[in-house]
């Protein structure tokens, strides 16, 4: 197994810029813009160009995903969704973005101005960092960190800090509620999120996302169903989507930490939220759905795109159909449900790996079936355990004596006959 995958885009730009370089010998340098001795400049320029391409790609994807999500909402709700601006309303979110930019930027009097302005930047910055390690096709990534998966976990935890800063800097009590909730949820869900990936790490033996994709002879969703379920739910919590959207909680907190933000600062938060959704689905697609791997009838990028859209669609579906959970239920789910599930997953995966350290594809299918059976059983047991308190409560209440209505009669001589007044 190769420990490194070549970064094709970077090499393409770099080798076009430099005149001669040993590392480009197999590539062929057909432009050679920069003279000899300027490899470092080529290095810088190609790095910046790569980031530029990536960031713009993400922005475009966000615009598209907002449109797609709204179209999907429309479908789910028996209406047409945005359909006015552009073919099928494609440019609606572009128009929205422009509108948001021209809105008045209001900073509340009580706000801590510096932190108030810092928070949106802090929110959007880690989201873009996540994309840097995700391979969206063969050799298409910004950097192949050998701690890529941990890097994603680390960077996403930064967004919690941004929410706390935003909620505090607004100087608004309702916002602070949202900040408190965000801390509780993020700290709780980081643990099952990290632990759910342990099984994947054991199977792939690397933290690099390229390595993980390479290691998936069959997609890890088959081998790690429990890991997938837990990671999916935990990433829903991390990106503040229903049923875990406590931080925004439109019907309770208004919009939580977004309450006082307006204009492009709100826009940046909005962007960060949707980019985080795409990021989460990209990570799920990479880690559990074999990323860019697929039959060779389609290019790898398209395979990745299909998987990404599938996961995004699933997230939208969940968002459209489920109500929000209560804060105690969310924390119970994290500590009493998902945490146990990850432990089960780790134990099962450890046993399997110690029995078969290097399984063939056929053996993997057998492992997959066993894993699915264990997954379904443990899910049922944990959900029963989580439900118990609610059902007991319900059955106790059934046995109350009814309030007496119409049981006695008064003497008929006391009664007025039914007649009109006067």
């Amino acid at each position, binding site marked *: 197994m190769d420990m490194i995958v070549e970064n094709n885009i970077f090499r393409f730009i770099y080798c076009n810029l430099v005149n001669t370089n040993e590392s480009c010998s197999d590539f062929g340098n057909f432009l050679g813009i920069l003279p000899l001795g300027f490899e470092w400049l080529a290095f810088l320029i190609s790095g910046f160009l790569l980031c530029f391409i990536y960031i713009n790609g993400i922005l475009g994807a966000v615009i598209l995903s907002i449109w797609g999500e709204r179209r999907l*909402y429309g479908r*789910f*709700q*028996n*209406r047409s969704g945005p359909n006015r601006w552009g073919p099928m309303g494609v440019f609606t979110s572009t128009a929205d973005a422009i509108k948001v930019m021209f809105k008045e930027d209001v900073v509340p009097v009580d706000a801590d101005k510096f932190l108030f302005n810092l928070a949106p930047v802090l929110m959007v910055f880690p989201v873009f960092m996540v994309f840097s390690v995700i391979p969206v096709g063969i050799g298409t990534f910004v950097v192949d960190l050998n701690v890529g998966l941990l890097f994603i976990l680390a960077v996403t935890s930064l967004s919690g800090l941004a929410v706390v800063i935003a909620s505090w800097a607004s100087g608004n*009590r*309702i916002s602070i*509620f949202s900040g408190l*909730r965000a801390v509780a949820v993020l700290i709780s869900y980081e643990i099952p999120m990290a632990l759910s990936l342990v099984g994947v790490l054991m199977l792939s033996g690397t933290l690099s996302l390229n390595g993980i994709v390479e290691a998936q002879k069959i997609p890890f969703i088959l081998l790690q169903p429990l890991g997938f379920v837990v990671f999916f739910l935990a990433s829903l919590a991390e990106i503040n989507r*229903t*049923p875990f*959207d*406590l931080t925004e*909680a*439109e*019907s*309770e907190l*208004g919009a939580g930490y977004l309450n006082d933000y307006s204009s492009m600062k709100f826009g940046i938060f909005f962007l960060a939220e949707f980019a985080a959704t795409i990021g989460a689905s990209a990570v799920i697609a990479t880690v559990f759905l074999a990323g860019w791997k697929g039959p060779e009838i389609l290019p790898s990028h398209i395979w990745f795109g299909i998987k990404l859209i599938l996961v995004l669609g699933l997230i939208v579906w969940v*968002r*459209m*159909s*489920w*109500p*929000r*959970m*209560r*804060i*105690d*239920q969310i924390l119970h789910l994290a500590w009493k449900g998902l945490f146990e599930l990850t432990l089960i997953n780790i134990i099962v995966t450890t046993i399997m790996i110690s029995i078969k350290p290097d399984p063939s594809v056929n053996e993997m299918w057998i492992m997959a079936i066993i894993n699915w059976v264990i997954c379904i059983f443990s899910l049922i047991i944990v*959900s029963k355990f989580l*439900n118990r308190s*609610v059902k007991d*409560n*319900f059955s106790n*209440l*059934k*046995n*109350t004596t*009814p*309030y007496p*209505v*119409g049981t006695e009669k008064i003497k008929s001589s006391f009664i007025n006959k039914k007649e*009109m*007044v*006067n």
Partner: protein
Amino acid sequence: MPSTQPVTVNLGPQHPSTHGVFRMRVTFDGEEIVDVEPVFGYLHRGSEKLAEERTYTQVLTLTDRMDYVSSMLNNQSYILAVEKLANVEPSPRGVWLRMIASELQRIASHLVATGFLIQDLGALGTPLIYSMRQREYILDLFEMLCGARITNSYLRPGGVYMDAPEEFWPALDKVLLDVPHAFDELEELLSANEIIKSRTIGVSILSPESMVNASITGPMLRAGGVDWDLRHRNPYDFYDQINFHRPLHNSSDNFARFWVRIQEARESVKIIRQCIDKIEPGPVRPSFDEVPRLLRPPPGDVYSAIEGSKGELGFYLVSDGGIAPYRCHVRASSLINLTLLREMLIGELFNDLFVSFGSIDLNMGEVDR
């Protein structure tokens, strides 16, 4: 041990889920509610004062705007009071028609209540839009009846404004076929969804005794197991000729309140079917010779109440023999059902605040009038 300090937050009047312009001053200890103080009056239009300067028929339009999601029921309550005050004998066809209209309105109102429950729980509008779609069909029927969808003013002393058109009856049949399916859908959403169940069951429990003592009526009371429905206990119009169940639930929590509403709407469908069977051709209102356009009821006072969609909806009218009521008081069930709001909410979490609040199913137009 460090002590905690409660924090007071002002929720409303501009808040997405206060069902209008309602304001609460809520004190939290962490996420737990320790005190609630409602503040009213943001939609106060002085309907009762305005009624004193309008004729008896004109007051009808004011009642439309009180509880704007069940204006037919408001009309019915007011018209019954006027009929009782002015000794008007209603014509049977008009009475059947207004019973059909008011039961349709009850279904529409319960649809709104159930849809908004799931909205308050945090679902992103899908269940709300499903229930609102069904409500639109009912509003279409109202449009056929009187030309208006929300503020109907359909009823008149002694009957209704005009007879239903030919195409109303097949359309009504179609709606009556659809509505049970819509409620099946909603009930499945409500009782098959683990999140909704776990969030509504056992939340905001009120004892039947305290509810009766606090004059709470309607679906809220019946969710506590008190079999008190004015249509059954004190039949007005022709409800004594109709068989229907009063769905009851014992647990008196948020789930029970909405379960009762859904079952009640199913019963309303049955009532409408019976009304269709029993309705006969004839005049829909007495002629203007019998009941003049400008009513001058004899001096006296009257209180008449109906079972509205939110509870007992009563009108107290005082006449001094003139063309306008001397005093018109509305017994607003939405306002009085709020009496125990504080008891309902204390000890619950912030997440359940608006769910419990929505389970009262109040309408600010009626609360503030």
